[in-house]
């Protein structure tokens, strides 16, 4: 379901926000810090380690939505699916986090959106990894077409 263009978009430096829900239907919003599209199409998503509510929700029911937004153009993509595992970060995850964080800061500074020393304050106290199976992809770019399903079919969310 994740084609080359979607993989490139998700793995590029961008704003990553995550929605989860508890078993009573209460939603939660948090941040992700890097996405890696694995060979089998699953996503390895690095989440804030102290996102207590989101992590509890994922362990309870696995339901997840992830939206990636280009910092400059605001082009956005939302992927929905379920998480099959929440795991401690690996050394490869740490490398991926460091690399993506540096690229995000570079994009934001180059676009004159913020100063590097202020952005540094945004860094999470740590990350954990989750493995996500993607079930649907949506165009989430702001505007009336937001929510248009890109895969597996062409209907609205």
């Amino acid at each position, binding site marked *: 379901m994740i084609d080359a263009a979607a993989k490139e978009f998700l793995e590029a430096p961008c*704003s990553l*926000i*995550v*929605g*989860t*829900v508890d*078993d009573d*239907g*209460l*939603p*939660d*919003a*948090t*941040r992700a810090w890097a996405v890696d599209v694995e060979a089998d199409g699953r996503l390895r998503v690095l989440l*804030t380690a*102290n*996102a*207590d509510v989101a992590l509890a929700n994922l362990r309870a*029911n696995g*339901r*997840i*939505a*992830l*939206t990636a*937004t280009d910092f400059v153009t*605001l082009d*956005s993509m*939302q992927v*929905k699916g379920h998480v099959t595992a929440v795991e401690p970060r690996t050394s490869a995850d740490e490398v991926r986090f460091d690399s993506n964080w540096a690229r995000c800061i570079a994009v934001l500074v180059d676009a004159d959106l*913020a100063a590097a020393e*202020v*952005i*540094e*304050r*945004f*860094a*999470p*106290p*740590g990350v954990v990894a989750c493995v996500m199976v993607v079930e649907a992809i949506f165009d*989430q770019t*702001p*505007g*009336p077409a*937001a*929510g248009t399903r890109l895969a597996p079919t062409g209907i*609205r*969310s």
Partner: protein
Amino acid sequence: MSPRRQVTLYDIQSCFEGIIPAAIATASADGVPNVTHLSRVHLVDDDHVALSNQFFSKTVRNLAENPRACVEVIDPHTYDRYRMVLRYERTERRGPLFERLRRDIDAIAALTGMQDVFKLRSADVYRVVELELVPSAANLAEMRDAGPDGGRES
């Protein structure tokens, strides 16, 4: 459990200036989450914020089924993150709040050349039922440096 700091909506007024987009998570009646950016969250009073409703989006449809949302806002000066749990209370289609949000939407539309696309349908008002700082690494270091009394002298 992560440490949490008590804050009020007025403590975080700069988060409502519309400089950094917020994030909103909602869920459908059958428990499927949706998450998207919001251009701006508007401060209404001590306990309420307002969100602009421009399109019949998935967020709007979810809130019609399940009137609870979680919003994350960012202070544009410090990059501190705040998590709010909201409960829908009412919709306004006229009056001072509606006009305030309409002016904001019109300004964004003019800046982006999308006057025919962005048009306010309603101002939706939510009670803030939870508000907390989501501590970054920098926040945690500052809390440690401040000590258990937050750095205040007795």
